[in-house]
């Protein structure tokens, strides 16, 4: 197991390097630069600026410097927001996005698994239809519409929650719900379908035949085995949810990482793009690793190193 994880960490580093490299070139090939603006700078000043940030250097020098900086976990200052370093920007934004994201994931997992389980156990009964209609509703409303409608109804019309911003617990409820709606529905449906899959297996029948109660079967055999697709879905999803959603953050005026990232791409704020990409990738790769480890813990039939067969 440890050996496997060690190997995976190596792979993570390799992937990171590839991601950094790809992002570096994508950034350079995209039209525009951090100094692109409506009121164009005098050529001389733009040249000075570029020289100052080393953008006049050949690409391999810039690339090399990036790699060194990233290895030292120093992403430098933001091009646009001069008083902020990228490290600070990520730290500030991630604090907020992570809390919001964890809330959303929790709601999604709790509600999604329960809905899905109920639906599967009562397959083709009204509970099934009810749960799936909720799930379909969740999926079919895009998050930007969901967020606006929640805000309109619960904040503007009913006045139960504040309209926007990130100040107290009450401020977090609507954005967390809006963020959770699609994953909840997705998880509910995945749970249902893989539960159905599992329920028809022989070992469930055996368990029934042995006289185990429905709930014991559900907990001991079904849910555990039905969680595989949910787990593989939630891994990358968790990574993207806790690193922030542009749309939700914009509508609810939340100072999270998601909106900073989208803005940085629009601004061609190279250091921010690179910093957030690296940060996001690390979280993503760790989540993926976690998923693979969870796979083994959940389903003993999967071998971590399926290597023997091919080698």
């Amino acid at each position, binding site marked *: 197991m440890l050996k496997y994880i060690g190997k995976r960490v190596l*792979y993570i580093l390799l992937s990171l390097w590839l991601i950094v490299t790809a992002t570096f070139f994508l950034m350079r090939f*995209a039209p525009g630069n951090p100094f692109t603006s409506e009121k164009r700078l005098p050529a001389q000043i733009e040249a000075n600026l570029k020289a100052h940030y080393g953008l006049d250097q050949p690409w391999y020098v810039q690339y090399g410097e990036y790699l060194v900086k990233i290895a030292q976990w120093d992403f430098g200052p933001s091009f646009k927001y001069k008083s902020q370093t990228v490290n600070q920007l990520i730290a500030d934004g991630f604090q907020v996005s992570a809390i919001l994201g964890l809330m959303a994931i929790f709601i999604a997992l709790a509600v999604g698994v329960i809905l899905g389980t109920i639906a599967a156990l009562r397959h083709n009964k009204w509970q099934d239809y009810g749960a799936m209609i909720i799930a*379909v509703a969740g999926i079919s409303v895009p998050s930007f519409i969901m967020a606006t409608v929640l805000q309109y109804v619960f904040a503007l019309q009913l006045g139960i929650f504040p309209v926007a911003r990130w100040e107290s617990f009450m401020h977090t409820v609507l954005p967390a719900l809006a963020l959770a709606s699609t994953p909840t529905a997705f998880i509910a449906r*995945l749970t249902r379908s893989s539960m159905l899959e599992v329920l028809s297996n022989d070992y469930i029948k055996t368990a029934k035949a042995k006289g185990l109660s429905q709930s014991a079967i559900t907990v001991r055999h079904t849910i555990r085995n039905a969680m595989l697709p949910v787990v593989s*879905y939630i891994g990358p999803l968790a990574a993207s949810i806790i690193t922030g959603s542009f749309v939700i953050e914009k509508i609810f005026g939340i100072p999270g990482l998601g909106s900073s990232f989208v803005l940085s791409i629009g601004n061609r704020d190279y250091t921010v793009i690179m910093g957030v990409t690296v940060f996001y*990738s690390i979280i*993503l790769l760790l989540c993926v690793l976690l998923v693979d480890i969870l796979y083994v813990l959940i389903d003993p039939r999967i071998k971590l190193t*399926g*290597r023997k067969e091919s080698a």
Partner: protein
Amino acid sequence: MEPMLQDKFKLAGIKHQDADNVSRSGLSFWQDVMTRFYKNKLAMIGLVLLIGLVFMAIFGPHMTGHDYRTNNLSQKNLAPSAEHWFGTDDLGRDVFTRTWEGARISLLIGVSAALIDLLIGVIWGGIAAYRGGRTDEVMMRFADVLYGVPYLLLAILFMVVLGQSLTTMILAMTITGWINMARIVRGEVLSLKNREYILAARTLGAGMSRIMRKHLIPNTMGPILVTMTLTVPTAIFTESFLSYLGLGLSPPLASWGTMASDGLPAIKYYPWRLFFPAAFICLTIFAFNVIGDGLRDALDPKLRK
């Protein structure tokens, strides 16, 4: 075999390569699937709905005599009426006509993105999991890298290099869209491939492609279909997000996604501009979902009675 035994035993007429063929006779697989699908009321509702939507996407834009692009500024933001069934938008264009014009684009984008995702995702995930070992490692790490690179940058470059068009849009949508599918297929296949019946099939000499087609894919059909029906809405929403950032369609062409996001600020004042596109997005996705569920149940070999 020894000659003596050869006399005592007779081949029952089954060729070696068919050894794995233990299908039952009678109804063919697909007949069976269709029968069960037709019995599923919800799925049939979905199918009818979808056919209706496609019908309207084809004929809807020509039903009222208004076109989707001519402005009529004196008629802007009118509520639904006999003249304009779904009202008019902020440039005085007929929302009914635009809704069905938008249906063409949204449905096209949704379905083609889902199909491409399905194709790439199933092949990629399936091969990775089945081959295992180094192949799996390399293939899945490639997916990670693609997932990690900022999608917006990729999309921007796509648009710049290939020019803005519907095709580019669909391609941009699938750059990373298939990864989820690949992950899910891989997870399922990983869990299935060491099961007894696969081992049995393999022992009986079935090759990789046969095992994939006959055993692994049918058994992963459930999650695949669910994921696929979810790619449709994702594609429809991604399109509106890209359009919002200036990477999408050029107006006056509209999709449901762009119509809905245009209508969003008007929720308080002219709700019909949001309601109709949003409602049809929901209906479409509902239809895809129940059809997906119906197919899933119908395809499931274990639910056969």
